[in-house]
């Protein structure tokens, strides 16, 4: 009699425990549509990656990817970032304290570190990283390349990372929030006169670099209610002669890092003192603005901050 109850009790406990185990195990794991999306992740270079479960260990080899991961709450899955990562947290301090692993340089991440961490998923950007991406895939790692060419592309990347990490809802909320902020700016500047904007990426005395129509910063300028003064050039980065800029006479000058590679930012006084620049309307009217290069050159959620800041530069009377 007692034995019967005992057996029954044990069976019930085992069943509950198993059910609980199974529930806990499968909680947060994909099913149905979510599973289908996870098995068909197509990145910005058209490469298809197939995952069967949400990744537990993610390595981000680009600051822009890290910013997206943290913005949608995938914090606890990120096991390693680069030395350049500084947002939303001071990752250098984390790395120094041993709370985060560094894969080293952005342009040449340390393959041995990556392999030793055995990640389930790696997020990378395009350009200089393409060779690394190829060798990581040769090693059999799952790599998503986030290399958007437009603001819409950045929003799509946020959804893609959401699908890959099981943070669909958070990604959707973020995308909706960013979209409504962009729309709010668009509404505000809709009827304002658009200033001609010069965006400097690298300065040399007589021939410097700016952006043409194909850089997505061009779109940020447009969304902020300005016109890129070299937007008629069908290229991403564009080198011009100083006289071409003086001729086009910009109303506003936006300065992210002015030394490609050096990260050095030109001071406003230095810009005013450049030969012949005092003839430009932007210099005469004191409309030269520095902007944090990290918000405007990283294809992450903070590009919307860049749009908002530039809208104030371009249309101070509206804000």
């Amino acid at each position, binding site marked *: 009699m007692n034995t019967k109850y005992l057996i029954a009790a044990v069976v019930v406990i085992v069943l509950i425990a198993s059910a609980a185990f199974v529930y806990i195990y499968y909680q947060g794991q994909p099913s149905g549509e979510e599973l289908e999306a996870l098995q068909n992740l197509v990145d910005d270079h058209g490469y298809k990656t197939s995952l069967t479960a949400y990744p537990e260990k993610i390595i981000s080899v680009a600051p822009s990817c890290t910013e997206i991961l943290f913005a949608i709450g995938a914090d606890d899955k990120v096991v390693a970032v680069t030395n350049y990562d500084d947002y939303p947290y001071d990752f250098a301090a984390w790395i120094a304290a041993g709370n985060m692993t560094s894969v080293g340089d952005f342009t040449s991440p340390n393959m041995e570190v990556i392999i030793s961490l055995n990640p389930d998923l790696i997020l990378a950007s395009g350009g200089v990283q393409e060779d690394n991406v190829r060798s990581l895939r040769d090693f059999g790692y799952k790599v998503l390349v986030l290399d958007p060419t437009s603001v819409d592309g950045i929003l799509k990347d946020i959804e893609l990372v959401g699908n890959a990490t099981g943070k669909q809802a958070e990604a959707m909320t973020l995308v909706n929030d960013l979209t409504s902020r962009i729309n709010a700016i668009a509404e505000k500047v809709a009827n304002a006169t658009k200033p001609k904007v010069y965006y400097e990426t690298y300065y040399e005395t007589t*021939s410097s670099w700016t952006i043409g129509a194909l850089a997505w910063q061009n779109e940020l300028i447009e969304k902020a209610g300005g016109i890129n003064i070299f937007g008629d050039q069908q290229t991403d980065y564009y080198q*011009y*002669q100083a*006289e071409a800029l*003086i001729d086009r006479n910009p109303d506003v000058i936006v300065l992210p890092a002015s030394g490609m590679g050096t990260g050095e930012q030109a001071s406003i006084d230095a810009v005013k003192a450049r*030969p012949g620049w*005092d003839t430009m309307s932007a210099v005469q009217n004191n409309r030269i603005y520095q902007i944090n290069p990290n918000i405007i050159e990283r294809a992450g959620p903070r590009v919307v901050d860049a749009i908002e800041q530039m809208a104030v530069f371009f249309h101070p009377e509206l804000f």
Partner: protein
Amino acid sequence: MSKDEVESTFFRRTSRWKLIVLLLVAALIIIVIVSLNFGSELKTPISFSDILTILGKRIPFLGDHIDSSSITLQMEAIILTYRLPRVIAGVLIGAALAAAGVLYQGVFKNPMAESYVLGVSAGAAVGASFAILSGISFAFLGLGLLQVAAFVGALSAMFLVYSISRVGSRVPVETLLLNGIAVNFCGFAIVGLLEILAGNELGNIVGWLIGGYSNILWKSIWSVLPIIVVGIVASYFFARDLNVLSMGEETAHHLGVNVERSKQILLVLASLITAAAVSISGLIGFVGLMIPHLTRLLIGPDHRILLPTSTVVGAIYLVICDDIARVITTPFLSTGEFPVGIITMLFGGPFFIFLLKRKKGSYKP
């Protein structure tokens, strides 16, 4: 025979000289003004009459009477801040290289002599390469570390070659020539080593070795202008000594020319002029070697006319080459333009061969 008698026998001053120099200077001025037309494609094109107005306004007194209502501030900045210094730099550098070429060829009595002799180019190249690799930037009298290092390198190489070539109280030309070539090879070997070590800076070193001055502004011009002008004018006073030297050092000595002193002064002048020019432009080839030959083919060997005409022809030649460099722009180069040093060699070489062929390959020093 006295020095004057020799000159009146072998070198005859003709009445055409003044006319030739006058015509060349007029041609240079016209070419300078026409060259101001060339540049980037502009949204508000600057017409030729706009350019004349902008320049005319700068003439004292007369300028007040010129109607400048069609001229914008931007047009003025484009012409006066960017295009004019670039064209003037062409005049200055072309004149300097050609004049120095005449002096080197005259002193060495050697058709191959130019700034490579005496190691001047190599010295400048070593200085410039170290400056590029150091990555340090500073400004001194409108010159950066690169310019100062090139200038110092050029002059040190010359003094080195000169002092090791001294035999007793004499400095024989043959010894100078050979030592110069040896120092030159050593110098370019060092540059080659630096190029291998250069990494990302390789392009900058190669660019400097090819030569160009697309980044030139007034302040760099002011800093070398006095050296070049004073150097060329001073060397003109030694034109007669060069004539006599071309008859052989022995003869020159007997005719009362202080051969060693003249040689010394002329080499220092030529090296100073060259160092000043290459410090702001990099090593622009062909001009120093070929322009004196070209002028000699057309005008004769008398240094009193050869020096001024070569100077002006060198200026004209470099300004035209730089115009070509600005017109053929290419997106494939980091500067967006062909370096003018490529143009001077690419177009100049065949042209010179053509002229030499027409003169039936003859060379008269």
